[in-house]
């Protein structure tokens, strides 16, 4: 749809970088930010179930390839 901005979400975790070549049509950068933050929360939930530490990043690019938002979560747990 013309006029609707598209954002690309590249996801990195301990194991790999998953690049997004399809993107999502969203209203604006604020919505892209909300999407990125929700996604990172969900991925931390899955990550903590599998490992006791990790770093997950979500980088949001616009169609011109400019980085618009970066979310990062790291988690760790150790015996006291």
């Amino acid at each position: 749809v013309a006029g609707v901005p598209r954002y690309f979400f590249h996801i990195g975790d301990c194991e790999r970088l998953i690049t997004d070549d399809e993107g999502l049509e969203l209203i604006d950068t604020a919505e892209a930010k909300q999407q990125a933050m929700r996604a990172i929360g969900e991925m931390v939930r899955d990550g903590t179930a599998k490992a006791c530490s990790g770093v997950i990043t979500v980088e949001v690019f616009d169609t011109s390839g400019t980085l618009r938002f970066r979310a990062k979560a790291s988690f760790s747990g150790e015996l006291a």
Partner: protein
Amino acid sequence: MLVKLLTRKLNFRDSVSQTEQAALEAAVARTEDYAARSDIIREGERPSASSLLIEGMAARYTILPDGARQITAIHIGGDFVDLHSFLIKKMDHGVLALTPCRIAKVPHENLRELSERHPHLSRLLWLSTLIDAAIFRQWLVAMGRRSAEAQMAHFFCELLLRHRITGIALGDSFPLPITQGELADALGLSAVHVNRLLKELRASGLIAWREGVLSILDFGGLGDLAGFDPTYLVLDRAPR
């Protein structure tokens, strides 16, 4: 015949007689067509007829005050999307056409008559609402306790079996003409996470999703990932 897919579904679990099939067909008052993304039933409505989906894909959904939408069920041809409205009366959720949908409207008075004259058929319709409930339970378990990846894998395994039961599946492929955003709303996940999970399932050679058709390339592998046990779909034929 309008009730062909429904009859196939019921016949999969028990034997539907010619008389029962004719009674079902006669209970349909009319058909209605809905455009994709239009409401078939709105929350709060009091339908006077239940809607049997003849063709297309529909979703039960709830919208929260902040605008977030949760799809609580996906329906395919042969499913009653609101058989429960016959007894519950006031809809506590809406039903949305995900694709163009053809609906057969079965007036509640006809359902009442069916239940009085055809107790066996009535039990089979009861069974179909019990299977709906079993599917809700599995979605709940998946949302609460499975990883997002396993939840998605489980969803695809379930949809394939449901399409096979009504004969709509082609081999291990079935129509899934919905957007990633709609899939995200059904799984209760963000669209970004869903996009990532789809990529991973594709890269693992488990699924392909092209032009509205979902193909399961390795049902065993996808089932293992999901921890899929189809018992809840009642796949055995027995007198009910």
